């Protein structure tokens, strides 16, 4: 086994006892020891960077409410909560269950995964093949490539959003669904999925807003009305 592979396995924590002994012995060799030390530094740098980024993010969660009047808000919200809790005791809808009963993976209506033998596979076909196999990570990657090369392809945006939802990456999904200027083809769907997404992430008010919109003319009118009723 070459030295690089030993080092790789060391970081993967997959050295066998024999390999571990070999690794230990090799540390006497300065070049080898330096290489290990350098890679440990890389690990340290990346760890530090990632932790700092995440911690900064957490700090912004704190700053989202102003500190003045915090006490008042706290006191007021306790009363409101208490009141609401008593009022709705036993009849609060379970958002997760509602989500599960209404959410459906959007079907592939773009690229049917049947083709002639001599055809070369296009990226679109590849993406939808993964999509249908429920390999959403891979599907996403290809959708993203499609968006980069042809940003006008609306379906790639839309199916990216659905893939994100399947992967429970709700912020990403939300960004696409609410940040895209949808044509008629996807406008109804986008609103409907946004409503479900907000429900899933415990924001019933935001969800209601989208449902109200969908209940007007959308092709999800029936479901929206139903769901609105259950949320009340």
């Amino acid at each position, binding site marked *: 086994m070459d030295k*690089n592979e030993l080092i*790789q396995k060391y*970081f*993967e*924590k*997959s050295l066998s006892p024999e390999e571990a002994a070999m690794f230990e012995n090799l540390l006497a060799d300065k070049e080898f020891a330096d290489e290990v030390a*350098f*890679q440990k*530094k*890389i*690990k*340290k*740098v*990346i*760890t*530090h*960077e*990632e*932790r700092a980024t*995440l*911690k900064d*993010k*957490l*700090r912004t*969660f*704190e700053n989202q409410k102003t500190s003045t009047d915090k006490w008042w808000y706290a006191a007021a919200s306790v009363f409101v909560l208490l009141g609401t809790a008593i009022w709705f005791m036993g009849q609060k809808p379970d958002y*997760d269950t509602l989500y599960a009963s209404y959410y459906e993976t959007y079907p592939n209506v773009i690229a049917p995964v049947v083709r002639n033998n001599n055809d070369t596979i296009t990226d679109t076909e590849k993406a939808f093949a993964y999509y249908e196999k429920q390999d959403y*990570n*891979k599907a996403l*990657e290809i959708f993203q490539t499609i968006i980069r090369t042809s940003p006008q392809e609306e379906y790639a945006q839309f199916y990216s959003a659905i893939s994100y939802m399947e*992967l*429970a*990456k*709700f*912020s*990403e999904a*939300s960004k696409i669904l609410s940040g895209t200027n949808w044509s008629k083809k996807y406008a109804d769907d986008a609103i409907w999925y946004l409503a479900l997404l907000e429900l899933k*992430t*415990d924001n019933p008010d935001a969800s209601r807003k989208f449902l109200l919109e969908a209940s007007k003319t959308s092709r999800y009118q029936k479901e929206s009305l139903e769901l609105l009723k259950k949320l009340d």
Partner: protein
Amino acid sequence: MNKETQIIIGLKNGDERTIHSLYKAYKPEFLAFASKYNLTADDLLDVYQDAMVALCENAKKGNLENLNSTVKTYFFSIGKYMIFARLKKKKQLFAMEDLETFPFEWEDEYEEMDEEIVILKNLFKNLGEQCQQILRLFYYEEKNLDEITVLMNYENKNVAKTQKYRCIKYLKQLFKDRNNG
């Protein structure tokens, strides 16, 4: 998919909404629990955030996959550990007793930064996205090369291996130039 699995997947993917909702959900109980220790309010909040970072980090490394407790229990174990570690740092506690073992990794040495590390960090940030990503997956998320091959859509494991090797070599060259120049 049940709620626990959803949380674990969300954390693993670094989903901001999942993190934010847990952050809000655990905070009051954590602060109440932690208030019996002799730490300032600033310290408590800082410890809480560190514990949350550790939770996310361990989720990324796949340590939550075979959890035999809830995510919440796991989080509070981390929190407790973090409180003790903080007290120890402030020399208010000498032994880390009373801590059950649980599958949680947190190496504190990563907190210290010397000049060399600062330089290397800047060089790392200037690498191409592809290199940053592969090194991040390998060293931080502790994915093995098979997983990286899939995640980054490489042709096969050897391509991933070569790519990683090149990135390390390039970074090392930059670092050497920087130190000699």
